[in-house]
Protein backbone atom coordinates (compact mmCIF):
# COMPACT_ATOMS: atom_id res chain seq x y z
CA UNK A 1 0.00 0.00 0.00
CA UNK A 2 1.53 3.35 -0.97
CA UNK A 3 2.31 5.55 2.00
CA UNK A 4 -0.08 8.45 2.26
CA UNK A 5 -1.52 10.55 5.01
CA UNK A 6 -4.19 8.52 6.75
CA UNK A 7 -6.17 11.69 7.12
CA UNK A 8 -6.03 12.73 3.47
CA UNK A 9 -9.67 13.22 2.50
CA UNK A 10 -8.91 12.59 -1.15
CA UNK A 11 -8.11 8.97 -0.35
CA UNK A 12 -11.48 7.51 -1.09
CA UNK A 13 -12.05 4.06 -2.35
CA UNK A 14 -13.81 0.81 -1.76
CA UNK A 15 -13.43 -0.64 1.67
CA UNK A 16 -10.69 -3.26 1.69
CA UNK A 17 -10.38 -5.73 4.48
CA UNK A 18 -6.73 -5.88 5.38
CA UNK A 19 -5.18 -8.00 8.09
CA UNK A 20 -1.91 -6.91 9.65
CA UNK A 21 -0.70 -9.82 11.76
CA UNK A 22 -2.60 -10.10 15.00
CA UNK A 23 -2.53 -6.45 15.89
CA UNK A 24 -5.57 -5.18 14.04
CA UNK A 25 -6.64 -2.82 11.35
CA UNK A 26 -7.22 0.85 11.79
CA UNK A 27 -10.19 2.20 9.90
CA UNK A 28 -10.23 5.93 9.47
CA UNK A 29 -13.59 7.52 8.94
CA UNK A 30 -13.59 10.52 6.64
CA UNK A 31 -16.84 12.14 5.56
CA UNK A 32 -18.72 8.88 6.00
CA UNK A 33 -16.20 6.68 4.18
CA UNK A 34 -14.12 4.14 6.06
CA UNK A 35 -10.56 3.80 4.80
CA UNK A 36 -8.17 1.17 6.14
CA UNK A 37 -4.76 2.34 7.22
CA UNK A 38 -1.68 0.37 8.08
CA UNK A 39 -1.53 0.55 11.87
CA UNK A 40 2.27 0.52 11.89
CA UNK A 41 2.33 3.43 9.46
CA UNK A 42 -0.10 5.45 11.51
CA UNK A 43 1.70 4.80 14.77
CA UNK A 44 5.08 5.71 13.40
CA UNK A 45 3.93 9.09 12.22
CA UNK A 46 5.66 11.86 14.11
CA UNK A 47 3.98 14.56 16.07
CA UNK A 48 1.15 14.72 18.54
CA UNK A 49 -2.42 14.46 17.37
CA UNK A 50 -1.95 12.38 14.22
CA UNK A 51 0.14 9.51 15.52
CA UNK A 52 -1.08 9.02 19.08
CA UNK A 53 -4.31 7.16 19.82
CA UNK A 54 -6.31 9.49 22.00
CA UNK A 55 -7.78 6.93 24.35
CA UNK A 56 -8.44 3.30 25.13
CA UNK A 57 -11.81 1.61 25.47
CA UNK A 58 -11.76 -1.42 27.75
CA UNK A 59 -14.97 -3.23 28.67
CA UNK A 60 -16.66 -6.11 30.48
CA UNK A 61 -13.75 -7.25 32.63
CA UNK A 62 -16.18 -9.24 34.87
CA UNK A 63 -13.76 -9.68 37.77
CA UNK A 64 -15.23 -12.46 39.93
CA UNK A 65 -16.44 -14.65 37.05
CA UNK A 66 -15.00 -18.16 37.24
CA UNK A 67 -17.12 -20.45 35.09
CA UNK A 68 -15.90 -22.67 32.22
CA UNK A 69 -16.13 -19.91 29.60
CA UNK A 70 -13.07 -18.41 31.34
CA UNK A 71 -11.92 -19.62 34.76
CA UNK A 72 -9.24 -16.91 34.90
CA UNK A 73 -10.65 -13.50 34.04
CA UNK A 74 -7.98 -11.80 36.16
CA UNK A 75 -5.37 -13.50 33.99
CA UNK A 76 -6.90 -12.40 30.68
CA UNK A 77 -7.29 -8.86 32.03
CA UNK A 78 -3.63 -8.94 33.05
CA UNK A 79 -2.63 -10.04 29.54
CA UNK A 80 -4.79 -7.29 28.06
CA UNK A 81 -3.00 -4.73 30.19
CA UNK A 82 0.38 -6.07 29.08
CA UNK A 83 -0.78 -5.78 25.47
CA UNK A 84 -1.86 -2.17 25.99
CA UNK A 85 1.36 -1.27 27.81
CA UNK A 86 3.34 -2.66 24.88
CA UNK A 87 1.49 -0.60 22.25
CA UNK A 88 3.81 1.69 20.29
CA UNK A 89 1.82 4.80 21.21
CA UNK A 90 0.32 5.32 24.64
CA UNK A 91 -3.31 6.44 24.82
CA UNK A 92 -3.91 9.47 27.04
CA UNK A 93 -6.78 7.99 28.99
CA UNK A 94 -8.90 4.87 29.46
CA UNK A 95 -12.66 4.53 29.29
CA UNK A 96 -14.15 1.46 30.94
CA UNK A 97 -17.61 0.83 29.53
CA UNK A 98 -18.81 -1.24 32.46
CA UNK A 99 -19.26 -4.69 34.01
CA UNK A 100 -16.01 -4.06 35.82
CA UNK A 101 -17.07 -6.80 38.25
CA UNK A 102 -19.28 -9.84 37.88
CA UNK A 103 -21.34 -9.70 41.08
CA UNK A 104 -20.82 -6.12 42.39
CA UNK A 105 -18.84 -7.44 45.38
CA UNK A 106 -16.34 -5.33 47.32
CA UNK A 107 -13.49 -7.79 46.86
CA UNK A 108 -14.18 -7.94 43.12
CA UNK A 109 -13.97 -4.14 42.86
CA UNK A 110 -10.74 -4.28 44.91
CA UNK A 111 -9.16 -6.84 42.58
CA UNK A 112 -10.27 -4.94 39.49
CA UNK A 113 -8.80 -1.69 40.79
CA UNK A 114 -5.55 -3.44 41.61
CA UNK A 115 -5.26 -5.00 38.16
CA UNK A 116 -6.25 -1.86 36.28
CA UNK A 117 -3.65 0.15 38.18
CA UNK A 118 -1.12 -1.85 36.16
CA UNK A 119 -2.06 0.11 33.06
CA UNK A 120 0.56 2.69 32.17
CA UNK A 121 -2.37 4.99 31.35
CA UNK A 122 -3.06 6.77 34.61
CA UNK A 123 -6.40 8.41 33.84
CA UNK A 124 -9.51 6.19 33.80
CA UNK A 125 -13.18 7.09 33.49
CA UNK A 126 -15.91 4.52 34.07
CA UNK A 127 -19.59 3.83 33.64
CA UNK A 128 -21.27 0.89 35.38
CA UNK A 129 -22.68 -2.23 33.75
CA UNK A 130 -25.67 -4.08 35.17
CA UNK A 131 -23.26 -6.55 36.82
CA UNK A 132 -21.78 -3.63 38.78
CA UNK A 133 -25.12 -2.64 40.32
CA UNK A 134 -26.76 -5.96 41.17
CA UNK A 135 -27.39 -4.63 44.68
CA UNK A 136 -29.94 -2.17 43.36
CA UNK A 137 -28.65 1.32 44.16
CA UNK A 138 -25.12 0.30 43.22
CA UNK A 139 -23.68 1.21 46.60
CA UNK A 140 -20.32 -0.44 46.03
CA UNK A 141 -19.87 0.96 42.50
CA UNK A 142 -20.76 4.51 43.49
CA UNK A 143 -18.66 4.40 46.63
CA UNK A 144 -15.67 3.90 44.36
CA UNK A 145 -16.55 5.68 41.15
CA UNK A 146 -19.45 7.95 42.01
CA UNK A 147 -17.48 11.12 42.67
CA UNK A 148 -17.23 12.15 39.01
CA UNK A 149 -21.01 12.24 38.74
CA UNK A 150 -22.06 13.08 42.33
CA UNK A 151 -23.42 9.52 42.39
CA UNK A 152 -25.76 10.10 39.48
CA UNK A 153 -23.76 7.97 37.05
CA UNK A 154 -23.70 10.54 34.24
CA UNK A 155 -21.05 13.25 33.79
CA UNK A 156 -18.95 14.93 31.13
CA UNK A 157 -15.40 16.16 30.76
CA UNK A 158 -13.10 17.57 28.12
CA UNK A 159 -9.75 16.34 26.92
CA UNK A 160 -7.63 17.73 24.11
CA UNK A 161 -10.62 19.53 22.64
CA UNK A 162 -12.84 16.42 22.62
CA UNK A 163 -15.98 16.49 24.74
CA UNK A 164 -16.59 13.18 26.55
CA UNK A 165 -20.03 12.28 27.89
CA UNK A 166 -20.51 9.37 30.28
CA UNK A 167 -24.04 8.03 30.50
CA UNK A 168 -25.73 5.35 32.58
CA UNK A 169 -28.39 3.05 31.16
CA UNK A 170 -28.43 0.10 33.55
CA UNK A 171 -30.49 1.43 36.44
CA UNK A 172 -33.91 2.00 34.90
CA UNK A 173 -34.77 -0.76 32.52
CA UNK A 174 -37.69 -0.48 30.13
CA UNK A 175 -40.50 -3.05 30.27
CA UNK A 176 -39.26 -4.52 27.00
CA UNK A 177 -35.98 -5.36 28.67
CA UNK A 178 -33.90 -2.63 27.02
CA UNK A 179 -31.76 -0.22 28.99
CA UNK A 180 -32.91 3.34 29.64
CA UNK A 181 -31.45 6.75 30.40
CA UNK A 182 -34.51 8.31 32.01
CA UNK A 183 -35.87 11.84 31.62
CA UNK A 184 -33.58 13.49 34.16
CA UNK A 185 -30.44 12.27 32.42
CA UNK A 186 -31.78 13.17 28.97
CA UNK A 187 -32.57 16.68 30.17
CA UNK A 188 -29.04 16.92 31.58
CA UNK A 189 -27.62 15.78 28.23
CA UNK A 190 -29.57 18.40 26.29
CA UNK A 191 -28.30 21.06 28.64
CA UNK A 192 -24.72 19.79 28.56
CA UNK A 193 -24.63 20.03 24.76
CA UNK A 194 -26.34 23.39 24.51
CA UNK A 195 -24.21 26.07 22.93
CA UNK A 196 -21.34 23.75 21.99
CA UNK A 197 -19.94 24.24 18.53
CA UNK A 198 -20.96 21.53 16.06
CA UNK A 199 -17.31 21.03 15.19
CA UNK A 200 -16.52 19.85 18.72
CA UNK A 201 -15.74 16.14 18.53
CA UNK A 202 -18.05 14.27 20.90
CA UNK A 203 -17.48 10.87 22.49
CA UNK A 204 -20.42 9.30 24.33
CA UNK A 205 -19.91 6.17 26.36
CA UNK A 206 -22.40 3.94 28.19
CA UNK A 207 -22.61 0.24 28.98
CA UNK A 208 -25.67 -0.95 27.06
CA UNK A 209 -25.70 -0.42 23.29
CA UNK A 210 -27.18 2.92 22.35
CA UNK A 211 -28.91 1.50 19.32
CA UNK A 212 -31.13 -1.56 19.09
CA UNK A 213 -28.95 -4.47 18.08
CA UNK A 214 -31.25 -7.28 19.25
CA UNK A 215 -34.30 -6.47 21.35
CA UNK A 216 -35.17 -10.03 22.55
CA UNK A 217 -31.85 -10.10 24.41
CA UNK A 218 -32.13 -6.56 25.74
CA UNK A 219 -29.35 -5.32 23.45
CA UNK A 220 -30.38 -1.70 23.15
CA UNK A 221 -31.51 1.40 25.03
CA UNK A 222 -35.21 2.22 24.94
CA UNK A 223 -34.86 6.02 24.99
CA UNK A 224 -31.62 6.26 22.99
CA UNK A 225 -33.38 8.05 20.12
CA UNK A 226 -33.97 11.02 22.37
CA UNK A 227 -30.29 11.13 23.27
CA UNK A 228 -29.25 10.83 19.62
CA UNK A 229 -31.57 13.67 18.63
CA UNK A 230 -29.41 16.04 20.70
CA UNK A 231 -26.20 14.64 19.18
CA UNK A 232 -27.03 14.63 15.48
CA UNK A 233 -26.02 18.23 14.80
CA UNK A 234 -22.38 17.55 15.70
CA UNK A 235 -19.82 16.86 12.99
CA UNK A 236 -18.16 13.93 14.75
CA UNK A 237 -19.87 11.74 17.35
CA UNK A 238 -18.38 8.47 18.54
CA UNK A 239 -20.64 6.22 20.61
CA UNK A 240 -18.80 3.56 22.59
CA UNK A 241 -20.64 0.77 24.37
CA UNK A 242 -20.01 -2.68 25.83
CA UNK A 243 -22.37 -5.30 27.27
CA UNK A 244 -22.54 -7.71 24.33
CA UNK A 245 -18.92 -8.94 24.45
CA UNK A 246 -18.41 -8.66 20.70
CA UNK A 247 -17.84 -5.94 18.16
CA UNK A 248 -20.79 -4.55 16.31
CA UNK A 249 -20.41 -1.25 14.49
CA UNK A 250 -22.64 1.15 12.65
CA UNK A 251 -22.06 4.46 10.95
CA UNK A 252 -24.98 6.85 10.61
CA UNK A 253 -24.03 10.20 9.09
CA UNK A 254 -21.51 11.80 11.43
CA UNK A 255 -22.13 9.21 14.18
CA UNK A 256 -20.00 6.08 14.63
CA UNK A 257 -21.42 3.41 16.97
CA UNK A 258 -19.06 0.75 18.31
CA UNK A 259 -19.41 -2.02 20.90
CA UNK A 260 -16.23 -3.50 22.33
CA UNK A 261 -15.02 -7.02 23.07
CA UNK A 262 -14.81 -8.20 26.66
CA UNK A 263 -11.53 -9.07 28.37
CA UNK A 264 -13.33 -11.92 30.18
CA UNK A 265 -15.47 -14.07 27.89
CA UNK A 266 -17.31 -13.90 24.58
CA UNK A 267 -21.06 -14.08 24.05
CA UNK A 268 -23.03 -15.68 21.26
CA UNK A 269 -23.99 -13.78 18.16
CA UNK A 270 -27.49 -12.31 18.46
CA UNK A 271 -30.21 -14.94 18.61
CA UNK A 272 -27.97 -18.00 18.65
CA UNK A 273 -28.82 -19.91 21.84
CA UNK A 274 -31.24 -19.31 24.71
CA UNK A 275 -29.83 -15.96 25.77
CA UNK A 276 -26.81 -13.66 26.10
CA UNK A 277 -24.84 -15.84 28.50
CA UNK A 278 -21.12 -16.68 28.56
CA UNK A 279 -20.03 -18.59 25.45
CA UNK A 280 -17.55 -21.42 25.94
CA UNK A 281 -15.10 -21.75 23.05
CA UNK A 282 -12.00 -23.95 22.60
CA UNK A 283 -9.11 -22.71 24.75
CA UNK A 284 -6.97 -21.67 21.80
CA UNK A 285 -9.83 -19.64 20.37
CA UNK A 286 -10.61 -17.67 23.55
CA UNK A 287 -7.80 -15.08 23.29
CA UNK A 288 -8.87 -14.28 19.72
CA UNK A 289 -12.28 -13.24 21.02
CA UNK A 290 -11.08 -11.00 23.86
CA UNK A 291 -9.50 -7.58 23.48
CA UNK A 292 -9.49 -3.79 23.68
CA UNK A 293 -10.09 -0.84 21.37
CA UNK A 294 -8.10 2.35 20.86
CA UNK A 295 -9.76 5.41 19.42
CA UNK A 296 -8.18 8.30 17.55
CA UNK A 297 -10.02 11.55 17.06
CA UNK A 298 -8.72 13.90 14.40
CA UNK A 299 -9.96 17.44 14.16
CA UNK A 300 -8.81 18.66 10.77
CA UNK A 301 -10.61 17.09 9.07
CA UNK A 302 -13.01 15.87 11.77
CA UNK A 303 -12.65 12.09 11.89
CA UNK A 304 -12.77 9.04 14.13
CA UNK A 305 -10.52 5.99 13.86
CA UNK A 306 -11.12 2.87 15.95
CA UNK A 307 -8.61 0.02 16.28
CA UNK A 308 -9.78 -3.26 17.79
CA UNK A 309 -6.98 -5.47 19.11
CA UNK A 310 -7.29 -9.05 20.35
CA UNK A 311 -5.18 -10.96 22.85
CA UNK A 312 -3.98 -13.37 20.18
Amino acid at each position, binding site marked *: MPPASPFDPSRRGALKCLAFGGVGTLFVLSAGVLTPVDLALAASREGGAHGIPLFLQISDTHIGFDKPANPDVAGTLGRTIELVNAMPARPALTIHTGDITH*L*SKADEFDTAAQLLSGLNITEMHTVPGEHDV*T*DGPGAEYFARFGKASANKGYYSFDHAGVHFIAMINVMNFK*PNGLGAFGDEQLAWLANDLKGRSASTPIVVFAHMPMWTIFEPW*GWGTGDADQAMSHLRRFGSVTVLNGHIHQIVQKVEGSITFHTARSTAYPQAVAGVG*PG*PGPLKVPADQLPRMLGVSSVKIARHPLMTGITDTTLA
Partner: protein
Amino acid sequence: MFATTLRHAFAVPLGAAMLMTAPASGLFAAHAQAMSTVLIKDFAFSPAALTIKAGATVTWKNTDDETHTVVGPPGVFRSSGLDQGDTYKFKFDRPGVYAYICSMHPHMKATIVVQ
Protein backbone atom coordinates in the same frame (compact mmCIF):
# COMPACT_ATOMS: atom_id res chain seq x y z
CA MET B 1 -49.88 -27.16 39.64
CA PHE B 2 -46.50 -27.78 41.14
CA ALA B 3 -47.35 -25.83 44.27
CA THR B 4 -50.65 -27.60 44.74
CA THR B 5 -49.03 -31.01 44.53
CA LEU B 6 -46.47 -30.01 47.09
CA ARG B 7 -49.07 -28.78 49.56
CA HIS B 8 -51.00 -32.03 49.46
CA ALA B 9 -47.92 -34.22 49.60
CA PHE B 10 -46.61 -32.21 52.54
CA ALA B 11 -49.64 -32.82 54.74
CA VAL B 12 -49.38 -36.61 54.57
CA PRO B 13 -45.93 -37.49 56.00
CA LEU B 14 -46.20 -35.02 58.87
CA GLY B 15 -48.12 -37.45 61.02
CA ALA B 16 -49.10 -35.78 64.22
CA ALA B 17 -48.16 -32.28 63.08
CA MET B 18 -51.21 -30.32 62.09
CA LEU B 19 -51.10 -28.23 58.94
CA MET B 20 -53.39 -25.35 59.82
CA THR B 21 -55.08 -23.88 56.81
CA ALA B 22 -57.22 -21.20 58.35
CA PRO B 23 -55.90 -17.94 56.85
CA ALA B 24 -58.49 -15.84 58.63
CA SER B 25 -57.16 -16.82 62.02
CA GLY B 26 -53.54 -16.45 60.93
CA LEU B 27 -52.52 -19.61 62.75
CA PHE B 28 -49.87 -21.74 61.07
CA ALA B 29 -47.81 -24.51 62.57
CA ALA B 30 -44.28 -23.13 62.37
CA HIS B 31 -42.78 -26.32 60.98
CA ALA B 32 -45.53 -26.93 58.43
CA GLN B 33 -44.30 -24.47 55.83
CA ALA B 34 -44.93 -25.29 52.20
CA MET B 35 -41.86 -24.93 49.98
CA SER B 36 -41.97 -24.04 46.34
CA THR B 37 -39.11 -23.76 43.91
CA VAL B 38 -38.70 -21.58 40.87
CA LEU B 39 -35.86 -22.49 38.52
CA ILE B 40 -34.00 -19.77 36.70
CA LYS B 41 -33.05 -21.55 33.53
CA ASP B 42 -32.25 -20.47 29.97
CA PHE B 43 -33.02 -16.82 30.73
CA ALA B 44 -36.52 -17.59 32.06
CA PHE B 45 -38.28 -18.21 35.38
CA SER B 46 -39.83 -21.63 35.52
CA PRO B 47 -42.71 -21.78 36.32
CA ALA B 48 -43.53 -18.28 35.10
CA ALA B 49 -46.65 -18.18 37.26
CA LEU B 50 -46.70 -19.80 40.68
CA THR B 51 -49.59 -19.92 43.13
CA ILE B 52 -48.88 -20.48 46.81
CA LYS B 53 -50.58 -20.07 50.14
CA ALA B 54 -49.73 -17.15 52.41
CA GLY B 55 -46.90 -18.14 54.72
CA ALA B 56 -45.16 -20.29 52.14
CA THR B 57 -41.56 -19.76 51.16
CA VAL B 58 -40.41 -19.65 47.56
CA THR B 59 -36.88 -20.70 46.68
CA TRP B 60 -35.34 -19.51 43.44
CA LYS B 61 -32.38 -21.42 42.06
CA ASN B 62 -30.21 -20.17 39.20
CA THR B 63 -29.00 -22.94 36.91
CA ASP B 64 -27.75 -20.63 34.13
CA ASP B 65 -24.08 -19.76 33.78
CA GLU B 66 -25.11 -16.11 33.61
CA THR B 67 -25.90 -14.07 36.72
CA HIS B 68 -29.54 -13.31 37.40
CA THR B 69 -31.48 -11.46 40.09
CA VAL B 70 -35.00 -11.78 41.50
CA VAL B 71 -36.53 -8.33 41.92
CA GLY B 72 -40.09 -7.89 43.10
CA PRO B 73 -42.07 -4.74 43.79
CA PRO B 74 -39.99 -1.99 45.47
CA GLY B 75 -39.44 -2.70 49.14
CA VAL B 76 -40.95 -6.18 48.99
CA PHE B 77 -38.23 -8.57 47.90
CA ARG B 78 -34.95 -8.37 46.05
CA SER B 79 -32.10 -10.83 45.75
CA SER B 80 -28.44 -10.00 45.28
CA GLY B 81 -26.70 -11.22 42.12
CA LEU B 82 -27.24 -14.98 41.87
CA ASP B 83 -24.42 -16.89 40.25
CA GLN B 84 -24.87 -20.39 38.85
CA GLY B 85 -26.03 -22.68 41.67
CA ASP B 86 -26.98 -19.81 44.01
CA THR B 87 -30.40 -19.72 45.62
CA TYR B 88 -32.62 -17.04 47.09
CA LYS B 89 -35.57 -17.54 49.43
CA PHE B 90 -38.48 -15.31 50.35
CA LYS B 91 -41.41 -16.03 52.63
CA PHE B 92 -44.69 -14.59 51.39
CA ASP B 93 -46.82 -13.72 54.41
CA ARG B 94 -49.33 -11.48 52.69
CA PRO B 95 -51.79 -12.52 50.01
CA GLY B 96 -51.48 -10.70 46.72
CA VAL B 97 -50.07 -10.87 43.22
CA TYR B 98 -46.35 -10.21 43.07
CA ALA B 99 -44.82 -9.49 39.68
CA TYR B 100 -41.05 -9.78 39.52
CA ILE B 101 -38.23 -9.60 37.00
CA CYS B 102 -34.55 -10.23 36.66
CA SER B 103 -33.11 -6.72 37.03
CA MET B 104 -30.25 -7.56 34.69
CA HIS B 105 -32.38 -9.05 31.93
CA PRO B 106 -35.75 -7.39 32.47
CA HIS B 107 -37.44 -9.26 29.65
CA MET B 108 -37.42 -12.16 32.15
CA LYS B 109 -40.76 -11.74 33.92
CA ALA B 110 -42.81 -13.91 36.24
CA THR B 111 -45.47 -13.79 38.96
CA ILE B 112 -46.14 -15.25 42.36
CA VAL B 113 -49.80 -15.39 43.37
CA VAL B 114 -50.23 -15.67 47.12
CA GLN B 115 -53.65 -16.82 48.28
